[in-house]
């Protein structure tokens, strides 16, 4: 799976358009240096990555019923979500379908309709990449956040701020972000898992 689809699109544009004739070592450095890890969000109803790893049987049902192809298996080695279903919001965010077909389809109970909210998520806005922080007025994440100005707000200096209390971990902010390479990274608090 091409994990570069998200930030890769704009880098590829730059590379194609502006780096013609540049040595490949420059290209590698460019790619390496400007790459943010791809943000992957927990599937709906999932408590944590370690809980998911402990209980998910990797049957693939949630992935196949997702009508937006937002749920995908992560193939990156060494990632905390390797081999597990996750929301690859750089491609498509979770659209929070009514009736949560993914949770319905889960055969192992790893996805639980009672488990909601940010679930240990920390959404990090990279102030070096976020356009709003560079005086390029942007509100895409704030405007599209389904919490309607609860989880993501614009503060009085025109910068987005995130509040985990109202965040459902859908990743629409990541999909919407128009900064080159995206401006978000996603970290999850890990928990002990029985």
């Amino acid at each position, binding site marked *: 799976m091409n994990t570069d689809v998200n930030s890769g*699109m*704009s*880098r590829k*544009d*730059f*590379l194609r*358009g*502006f*780096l013609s004739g*540049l040595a490949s*070592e*420059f290209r*590698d*450095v*460019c790619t*390496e*240096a*400007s790459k943010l890890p791809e943000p992957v969000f927990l599937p709906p109803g999932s408590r944590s990555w370690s809980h998911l790893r402990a209980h998910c049987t990797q049957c693939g049902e949630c992935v196949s019923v997702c009508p*937006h192809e937002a749920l995908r298996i992560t193939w990156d080695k060494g990632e905390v979500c390797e081999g597990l279903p996750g929301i690859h919001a750089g491609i498509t965010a979770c*659209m*929070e*379908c*009514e009736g949560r077909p993914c949770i319905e389809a889960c055969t192992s109970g790893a996805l639980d309709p009672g488990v909601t909210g940010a679930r240990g998520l920390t959404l990090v806005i990279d102030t*070096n*990449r976020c*356009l709003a922080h*560079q*005086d*390029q*007025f*942007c*509100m*895409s994440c*704030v*405007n*599209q956040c*389904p919490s*309607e*100005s609860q989880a993501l*707000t*614009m503060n*009085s*200096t*025109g910068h987005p701020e995130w509040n985990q209390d109202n965040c459902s971990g859908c990743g629409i902010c990541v*999909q*919407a*972000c*128009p*900064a*080159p390479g995206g401006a978000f990274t996603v970290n999850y608090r890990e928990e002990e898992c029985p």
Partner: protein
Amino acid sequence: MSQLNRRDFLKTSAAITAAASIGVQLFPGIGLGEEINDGLEWHKSVCRYCGVGCGVMIGSRGGKVVAVKGDAENTINKGHLCVKAFYLPKAVHAKTRLLNPMIRKDGKLVEASWDEALDLVANKFNELRNAHGPDALAFYGSGQAETEETYMANKLFRGCIGTNNVEGNPRLCMASAVGGYLTSHGLDEPAGTYEDIEKSECFMLVGSNTAEAHPIVFERIMRHKHANPNVKIVIIDPRKTPTDQVATIHLFPKPGYDLPVFNAISYVLIQEGFADEAFIKEHVAIKGNDGKEVSLEDYKAFLEDYTPEKAEKISGVPAADIVKAARIFGKSKSAMSMWTMGLNQRQRGVWANNLVHNWHLITGKIGVPGSDAFSLTGQPNACGGVREGGGLCHILPGHRGVANAQHRQEVADVWGVPVERIQGKPGKHTVAMFQALNDGEIRGIYIMCTSPAQSLPNAAKYWKGLKEQFVVVAESFYPTMTTDYADVVLPAAFWSEKEGVYGCTERRSQYMAMAINPAGQARWDAFILRDIGKRMGFEKEFAKYETAEDMWNEYTSLTKGKDMDLTGAPYSRLKQVRGLTWPVPSVDHPGTYKRYTVGDPLFDKLPAEKKQGRRMFFYGDKSGNGKAVVWMRPHADPAEPCDSEYPFALTTGRILEHWHTMTMTGTAPELNRAVPKAYAEINPEDARRLGIANRSQVVLETRRGEMEIEARVIDRPAPGTIFVPWHWREWPINVLCNDAFDPGSKEPEYKVAAARLRKA
């Protein structure tokens, strides 16, 4: 991996491109020193997008535009830009740039030489003109064209071909604001400038989603409010928008039923003693809807039909909210009203404008710092090129009118054409023009820098004329919905590939530098028009224009002594400064902040006995009394009210990330990813009732068409209202819009149509 250190790496184009654009550290710990500007040339210009007029610096290297950043020295935006501007370099070098002329042969557009294309256009236009008269031809231009371009088109069509069928898309956008200013103030465009923002205590944002349609103006308001917590902001809009994050109170009138609310605010202002009766007596004439002057007592009696309670019955806005809003306006020491399409794109758009002007005229909140009735212009050069340049069917350059014989003479003398060539009768306004194209009355049309096949209201109705008649499209991008119908397509140089002037919302004319050469075989629109003119036989009329400066100099000579005097703004000056706000009657004049009062050279010039110690003199008042007008405008229903068959009010508009028909913003993958498709905003109550789930497909229908579209269930439109952004040709919502128009301004009522909705 390479052992290159990061400082070396910064010399790669990609890093320089991104870093130069946003001027910051891409890589923590690395300072951006001189390396970043290595080999980059910076050119002072203006953003290609909205009517705010942000100053930008275009960074070029090796013949390409590689970066756009805000001009830190521009007073409008002080280095800030919105996300659209950031991606302008992608539009400049997009694969969709039109590089060669094309002629339709056997139904297909094929590449042709400039000679072949220009000869075809010139010969065909002459043939049509000779066989059917000059009014068989038409020009449809744009508020995004440079002033010099519109000036050339105006001369060719009006002064040479001899038709007043000269129109532009500001007819669809700003005509009602023009009509409002002309009837309320006597002259077009705001009395104040953006400078009033940081001086104001109160903002009335009426029919404006400022956060998305005029982002940098919104940002200034937002920062001003944060620095001054006493600042209050009233929003009047049927829909909650991102602008609401600064709202003190939001009034939600039913779409098309807001005029009573505006009158009710005036009622409260007078009732509760906020009217400035001395100001009214000296500066204001009050007129009935029939144009006859009446007394203040008559006005008070008229307003009895628009008490807050009565306005609530018609508009749905609670009376208590109307009173609150009025008191906020009345109590504030200064107040700015700002509005845009919500008031203009209405079948009583001029009336809506008048009623907002009334608040300022009855309280005297005008002509002083922080107070103004400030219409926000949508496009970057609707003011400069079209309203000032005379690019509508009834006007001439320099705020002149075709009906005025002296005006025709003045323009004919400068153009060097016989005055009889310029008709005294206005030509066809936009909707009538495209209807005439349908009817075959107009047989040849030149469309420049706009895409009416997508942007006209009730758009599908007008595809017939575009298909059947001779259509020339001058355009920078291909394909568009309009080039689909073209017989000839001419590749136009794009922003940054040509110099010229844009005049924005606040009367500021700004020079845009040419940073690179036009792509492919593209040529500057003004030269294309000049050369067509020559090939049509108007050699001597066009031979003299060798540079953009020639055109600007001739045009500004026509503004000498007028309210919009630009003679103090030659290129030599505009290249040095960050624009000039007219009137600027000489090269040592700084430009004008407030019109109609001290500091306005036309006001200062008036003899004392005329001014009689008054604070303001509205010198556009044809009666000579120097008064503005408070109009007693009644409520009028929208042209297509909701009914049992079509119970929803459909309204359309813009979003932050995309611009108009997306020829430009659609070239940035990042902007496409941010908002990839159209959607219909549906209130959760309505969605629940109809069983419509968020992100599901619905069918939206009006009497003019239907479309399948994704539902966005969101608490933004009030119940009963649906909002759809208009940018995508795949979801051409303008097909569903109503082409009924304001009888005064001829501006169509995009903002209200009766619609129905069902699950797909």
